[in-house]
């Protein structure tokens, strides 16, 4: 525990949201990744956030683990695709771009909110250090 604990707690929030952004960008990057039907499709990435007990003297949040969605995906008829099976089907990941964009906004706003907390906390600490100088 230090004097400027708020900064560390907000840093953990920033890290968690950065990892969420990574997961979303991974999902969007692979949204058109086709695989053959004999293989599993790209699995959607999820981050599992977990609160850190403030009683432990830390507080904040951490990404406990990364979870993966279904590898089943959706089967699309693309006979010209080199990966197509003998019936002309390939497998695409079943990721909803709209859902990913919504998550992107949430992750971005969460990141910005944590930055705002750091900014405000810094100003607050500085105001406290100015005490008695007025």
């Amino acid at each position: 525990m230090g004097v400027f604990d708020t900064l560390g707690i907000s840093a953990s929030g920033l890290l968690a949201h950065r990892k969420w952004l990574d997961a979303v960008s991974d999902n969007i990057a692979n949204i058109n990744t086709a695989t053959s039907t004999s293989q599993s499709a790209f699995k959607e990435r999820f981050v599992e956030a977990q609160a850190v007990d403030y009683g432990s003297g830390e507080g904040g949040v951490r990404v406990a683990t990364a979870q993966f969605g279904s590898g089943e995906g959706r089967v699309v008829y693309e006979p010209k695709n080199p990966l197509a099976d003998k019936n002309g089907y390939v497998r695409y990941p079943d990721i909803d771009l709209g859902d990913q964009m919504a998550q992107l906004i949430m992750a971005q706003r969460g990141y910005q909110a944590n930055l705002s907390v750091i900014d405000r906390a810094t100003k607050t600490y500085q105001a406290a250090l100015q005490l008695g100088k007025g």
Partner: protein
Amino acid sequence: MTSPISALGFMSSFPTSGVGADMSVGTTTAVPAAQGAGGTDFASVLASSLDGLQATQSKADGLALQAATGDLKDVHDYMIASNEASLATQMTVAIKNKAVDAFNQIMGMPV
């Protein structure tokens, strides 16, 4: 009638009266009560504060080096570390200034 010197004895009950004593002005013998009353003496507070400042600044320096070499994983890590180092410096300087002010006020006291 209260003698003006008795005010010195009264002052020793302030926790901050350790300031004068720890800066080895030689008043320690005049007000021995200041030793026991203060709890943690100011010198060790300042020393630990400086140690903390040193640690914070070397952490920020390490992250700045990582940023220069491209090893930095998170941009915010360095920004927060440098922010914290700046805040810790401001706090230490503020504590130091307060202590020096208090010392000067005591030294400027007409006796």
